[in-house]
């Protein structure tokens, strides 16, 4: 029945030639000939109320079933903006991409990436970033997986002047090569429909690994792409060698800004780069966390900024269910391995990441999980650059389901199918570089679990504790973020299964508040 419809549509052109022939079959069958390939076009609409306004009916958009929630983001205006009389009453919030007046080619890229509508942070930040003149600087803090990368990538692409295709106009600095490569990927995908005259070139400025025979040779000659993304050291090098023309930069972005500015080397590099950029360039700083000390430094780097902020308690993503397992301390490490294998039957798991402290643990776990038929991949700082790139690419492609890694992977990496994060060791940091005393590392914990629950999806984070120190550390983390960690008892697997299921189902909507705009 319905098959006919599409076949009719297909025949339509040839039928048009036959118009003077007397109808041999029912006229109803040939209906499509005079009216073209859309038989139903002229049918009177049975739905007079059919929507003509796209905004009202985007998937789950407004209309009767609107999820109306502005989210818990605080927006503070810069002094300059205040002078112009802006205050919180003037907050601009957009609901659809069309409201931003973006280039249609960029719009195509967004839809093609499945970005159906702006996330919360995007709907609040982009109107200011794109529509105001002069463009304001901004320090943006938002939960992991809420669309920070998208925000600055759109801003960068929207600011480009395509009449100068060889001059760098937008720059993004990221702390690790993995993150930089990921951002290059996002920008390229977003700009994939810029073709012909407007072809978008993105230069990826990451350092070649001198030990790595497979790494591509370092870049020679001037950078002639409109967008440059890289790590601080490499970008600084390019500028010093006079290969990177910074005079026409319109926008500079620091991703994971707190990590960049707090680490000695990266921070200095970034500041030196900043000196080379025109004072008129828009500066954006983004991260999920901004510790107090970094904050001061940040305003120096990014003068008179607008601020988007979250309270500490709001920081952990609600959609990530945080649990812990008390491993058999008698069995020691072996207890942890067993626990790990058991976990995988409890719920449906897309991909998962296991964070460990040492490479030795990583090796041991890999062995254990491989025995249980899991496809496991390791990633740590000891690997060569190209090996790391390769590993991430294969994990991203879904060739492997489990990634065992150290903290190198904690930040920024966005793989949407990750539905489970396991803290095999509770993250700790040393108080002083040479000291032995360790305290729980709140930021790292947050960034780690932020690898799951991307863009409003549900994720599960399970931490292992096996003795008093690890238990205390995890409790401290729970207190800091104001979350209650649920204990998972693996002796009763059926019970554990129900518990996990309940927790995942429990008010799934909460986490949506952060992302739905």
């Amino acid at each position, binding site marked *: 029945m*319905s*098959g006919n*419809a*599409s076949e009719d*549509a*297909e025949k339509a052109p040839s039928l048009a030639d036959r118009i*003077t022939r007397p109808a041999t079959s029912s006229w*109803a069958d*040939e209906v499509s000939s*005079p*009216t073209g390939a*859309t038989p*139903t076009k*002229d049918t*009177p*609409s*049975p*739905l007079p109320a*059919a*929507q*003509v306004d*796209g*905004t009202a*009916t*985007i*998937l*789950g*958009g407004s*209309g*009767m*079933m609107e999820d109306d929630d502005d989210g818990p983001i605080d927006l503070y205006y810069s002094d300059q903006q205040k002078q112009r009389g802006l205050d919180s009453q003037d907050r601009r919030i957009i609901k659809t991409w069309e409201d931003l007046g973006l280039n249609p080619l960029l719009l195509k890229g967004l*839809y*093609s990436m*499945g970005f*159906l509508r702006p996330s919360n942070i995007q709907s609040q930040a982009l109107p200011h970033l794109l529509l105001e003149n002069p463009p304001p600087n901004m320090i943006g803090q938002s939960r992991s997986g809420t669309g920070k990368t998208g925000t600055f990538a759109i801003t960068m692409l929207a600011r480009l002047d395509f009449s100068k295709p060889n001059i760098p106009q937008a720059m993004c600095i990221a702390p690790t090569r993995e993150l930089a490569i990921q951002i290059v990927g996002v920008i390229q995908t977003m700009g*994939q429909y810029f*073709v012909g005259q407007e072809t978008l070139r993105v230069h990826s400025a990451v350092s070649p690994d001198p030990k790595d025979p497979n790494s591509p040779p370092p870049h020679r000659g001037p950078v002639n792409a409109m967008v440059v993304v890289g790590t601080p050291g490499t970008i600084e090098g390019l500028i010093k060698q006079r290969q990177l023309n910074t005079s026409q930069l319109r926008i500079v972005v620091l991703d994971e800004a707190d990590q960049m500015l707090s680490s000695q080397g990266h921070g200095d590099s970034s500041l030196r780069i900043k000196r080379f950029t025109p004072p008129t360039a828009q500066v954006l700083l983004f991260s999920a966390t901004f510790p107090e000390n970094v904050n001061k430094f940040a305003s120096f780097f990014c003068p008179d900024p607008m601020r988007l902020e979250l309270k500490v308690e709001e920081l952990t993503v609600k959609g990530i269910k945080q649990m812990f397992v008390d491993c058999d301390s008698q069995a020691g490490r072996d207890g942890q391995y067993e626990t790990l294998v058991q976990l995988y*039957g*409890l719920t*449906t798991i*897309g991909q998962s990441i296991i964070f460990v402290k040492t490479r030795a643990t990583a090796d041991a776990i890999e062995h254990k999980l491989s025995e249980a*038929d*899991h*496809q496991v991949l390791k990633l740590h700082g000891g690997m060569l650059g190209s090996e790391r790139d390769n590993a991430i690419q294969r994990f991203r*492609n*879904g*060739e492997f*389901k489990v990634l065992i890694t150290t903290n190198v992977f904690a930040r920024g990496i966005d793989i949407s*199918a990750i539905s489970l994060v396991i803290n095999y060791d509770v993250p700790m940091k040393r108080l002083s570089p040479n000291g032995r005393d360790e305290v729980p590392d709140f930021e790292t914990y947050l960034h780690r679990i932020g690898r799951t629950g*991307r863009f*409003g*999806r549900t994720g599960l984070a399970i931490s292992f504790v096996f003795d008093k120190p690890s238990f205390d550390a995890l409790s401290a983390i729970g207190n800091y973020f104001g979350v209650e960690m649920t204990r998972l008892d693996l002796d009763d*697997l*059926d019970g554990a299964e129900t518990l996990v299921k309940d927790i995942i189902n*429990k008010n*799934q*909507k909460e986490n*949506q508040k952060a*992302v*739905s705009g």
Partner: protein
Amino acid sequence: MGDSLPRNDDPASLLGRSFLGLDTFEYRNSEQVHRDALAAAQAEHARVREVAVRAYELHEARLAQVELYQRSLQEEERVRIETARAEAEVRLREIENAAKRIPIPPPRLPTPPPPPPPVPRESEPAAVVATPPPANTSQQQSQIEQQPVSTTPSILQPPTQLQPARSPFVQAQARTTQPQNLFQPPAQSKTAQAAPPFQQNTQSQALPNVSQQQQPIQKPIQQPEALKPVVKQSSHHLLWTPERYLEIFQNLKKLRKYIREDSASKPTKELKNQAGNLKRSIVASLGKLTLDVKLNNGPKETIMNALRQARDGGVPSIQVDPSLYMISKPEPTEGARNNGETMPALFLYLLNILAKGIVKQLINEAGPAPKAAEKIGFLTVAIFSQSEFLWRGHTMIDILMAKMRVSCPVLFGFRGLETTIEGRAVVGWKRDKEGNKSFVAAQVHSDRMTGLGAGYASICLRDFSKSAVTSPWKPWHYWQTLATITSTPPEEACSTQFTVLKAMIEFSEQKFLKFYGSAGVAALRVALVDFPENATQKGAANMSLAVLADKLLKDTGLRLRQ
């Protein structure tokens, strides 16, 4: 006509020619000369005449042509007028037809509550019980039946539908003699399905279109008797027997409840624990699938082993009639394995767990990353096509399809207005908690639909040409779903349909074209260009579907836009 004589040939020159031929004047009166002159005059006359005749003919032809031309003009004018008239007539018919089509008559009205199916089932079940404690099982049985009815009226089914479920655990061996009866629950729903198209014209003009189209198709489950007719009104665009899938779904729920709860209290607690373990091994295996097909053999074996264990009675469970979980009941097939009347309950339970796991895995993994659907579909089809897991040579994939029908009704032709609660219920927009009023967020819904759409495509579009077994869910299902979605009237097309359609096509277009060739290209054009363009409801999902056409052009060179 005389006027048209050639002017070049004046008389002097005519005569001169004969004179020029003579060398001397003296023979000027000779006979010869006169003859020559006569002959020349004759020839000249003939020539002139010929010219004149040709001119006449030409003139004649010209006149004829002018006349013909004028006549053709007249004819054309006539044809044009007639065509216009015909078009007007066509349009009129079309409008009439549309008017007829819109209000769809209550399909089941003509064949009111059909009691035939239950009768045989109820009369016979007492016959023989193949399982250990017969009395117990039938008691359990009645418990199972009653609880859902009393506690959750929402899953109530009309009595006629309930009957088939009543016999699940009861074994009627005598049935082989008259297998016809067993066909009835499925067969009946089929006839009901087929009936409406022919009845449409008789009734219905009076019914308001708008409300019909938006009628929640799932309502019948909640208030079966009252709303049935309304539901069926719009069923002409639905595929096969979605109603039957709902019954299967309910039957499966009862089966799960039996395995999990009712068996826990009995001395058969062993069954529950074993079922739990096997279940976890299946769920965990689904999570281990990777893109590399070879590496998926481990998980696949684990799942098949679990199923084998259950089938062979390694873990004993009662026997159940598998046709409760199928669209129609197959006859015993020569040479097929599992040819009996029943299969172990645990086996069917595990198939159900597998189906649920597949759906969940699709949602969780393929939702965010649609490429992951491929391997899940591969495994699904591999298991449901295994001859050792067929019943009487027929696949049990209806168990999965029942679950798909509930999770993603759009695949089966349902549509609804997402701005209304009823519309959301129809398109399978999940509530954020069972029984809750609020729905999951748009992004979550979109993810779910993406995963299921991509998974469905992956299940349908499998090439079995080189395989010894047959496909459990053939590619034409894909075409049918494509067709049923794209033939939605433009003003009814909804976001969920766009999302599902996009997921079904993206990354699957190569396989689709392999099966359907240029017809497939035309279908893709309808799906990616015409359908989103004509829809009155634009918006992000629509844009996203339309952009896929550009993406295919850019990535594969497939030009769909003219």
